[in-house]
């Protein structure tokens, strides 16, 4: 019972940190997809006197990734219904050129303003409409969700780290005497810390295994049956095999830091 309790006291906080890391990875992947969707769905309207090539727009601002010229004939046919052919041609000649301009990233509204300013430096460009109002509210909501989750992950990590420090104190209490005696008789550090490393590595392995199992379950069983669209659409992003490597590497790093801290703080002979 004591054995299980000792392991759980390290496994649980380690799992909390790993869950935080995995949540972050999953969130980054799903929000990247969402961000991509928002970016693809967004375009600003640019009005020019003369036709403009994409390269000209890109020379003005590097975030511009596409430009689509709106058909002037279609616009004229809408605004000049019932007018004769010559008037229609006159309108067509006088009508400026309209472009839907797409961006390569999901930017903050200040980024949009900067693009607008850059474009307006060209005398050929008459007007730039960013539709900043609706864009800004989506961006703010999106950023808020991202920020909230990050804060939660950081908070969870800090609390878990405190629990790990507590467990390190218990380790120190349990292993200090043996490590000091071994040190007096000339044992190298790896031999002194061997037992502690073994315990910690087992905990790291089980923590990784449990967190991976949770996300494996979420991806292959829960997400498919949840009926939640966003989950079903992003099922692939929920867990990747490479995540196991990231989780195990993270837990190893935590374990190595924890064990070495205990070993170094146990140096010297107790009076």
């Amino acid at each position, binding site marked *: 019972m004591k054995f299980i309790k000792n392991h759980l006291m390290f496994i649980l906080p380690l799992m909390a940190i790993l869950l935080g890391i995995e949540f972050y990875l999953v969130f980054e992947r799903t929000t990247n997809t969402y961000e991509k969707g928002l970016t693809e769905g967004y375009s600003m309207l640019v009005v020019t006197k003369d036709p403009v090539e994409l390269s000209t727009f890109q020379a003005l601002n590097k975030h511009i990734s596409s430009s689509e010229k709106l058909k002037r004939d279609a616009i004229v046919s809408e605004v000049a219904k019932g007018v004769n052919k010559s008037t229609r041609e006159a309108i067509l000649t006088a009508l400026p050129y309209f472009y839907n301009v797409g961006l390569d990233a999901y930017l903050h509204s200040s980024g949009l303003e900067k693009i607008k300013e850059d474009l307006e430096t060209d005398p050929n460009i008459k007007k730039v409409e960013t539709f900043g109002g609706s864009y800004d509210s989506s961006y703010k909501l999106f950023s808020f969700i991202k920020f909230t989750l990050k804060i939660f992950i950081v908070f969870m990590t800090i609390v878990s780290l405190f629990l790990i420090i507590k467990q390190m104190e218990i380790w120190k209490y349990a292993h200090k*005497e*043996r490590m*000091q*005696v*071994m040190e*007096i*008789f*000339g*044992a*190298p550090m790896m*031999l002194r810390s061997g037992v502690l490393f073994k315990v910690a590595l087992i905990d790291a392995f089980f923590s990784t295994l449990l967190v991976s199992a949770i996300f494996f379950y979420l991806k292959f069983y829960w997400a498919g049956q949840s009926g939640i669209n966003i989950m079903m659409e992003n099922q692939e992003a929920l867990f990747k095999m490479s995540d196991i490597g990231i989780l195990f590497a993270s837990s190893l790093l935590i374990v190595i830091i924890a064990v070495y801290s205990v070993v170094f703080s146990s140096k*010297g*002979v107790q009076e």
Partner: protein
Amino acid sequence: MSNVIHASHLTLAYGKGEKEVIKDANFSIKKGEFVFITGPSGSGKSTLLKALYGQLKPSEGSLVVGGLDLATIRQGKLQELRTHMGIIFQDYKLVNEWTVSKNVVLPLMIAGYSTEVQETQARRLLKHVKLSDYADRYPLELSGGEQQRVGVARALAKNPVVILADEPTGNLDDYSSNVIWDLMENACQQLDTTVLVVTHKIPTIFSLPYRHFIIESKGVYEVH
């Protein structure tokens, strides 16, 4: 005979040299000698012993043990040097979660000896300290005198060049104390091991010739 320990203008201090315990000490101890170091409480006996096993670096002068200057020794060399030492403590310093047998063979384990060698040596050493029946017991199941015999067996496990003992009989009754002194005398006599014992009282029954140093007013003086 060559010097196993040589101190030259040795100063030992705690902190950043603020609290000097031993100042400008000069002495040499040869191979196979039995040495007692006495002195009043707080005079620096245990501090000197700590310096001899590399736990406290000399703040001035040199302290050479087995040809290595402990003032400048690197960690790796210090570890190696310690494998040639047997150290006995007043409070035994046994690992309580290990069996008596495992405690005894700790120096052999550190040196990388095989399990068979360790087991054979454990039996031999425990027989030597008359604890053959206690191999599978744990230190806390033993009396103080028995625990100290385990400590002596551990110190002798790898035929050390030097045995350093800090008040080895400080917590023991007369019978147990005599057993410990006998074991250390034998080690000195039969294995030609240098034995350096810090004690507040030299035993009255002691058959070997020995040297006696006293620590007083920060100095280390030989008593003739």
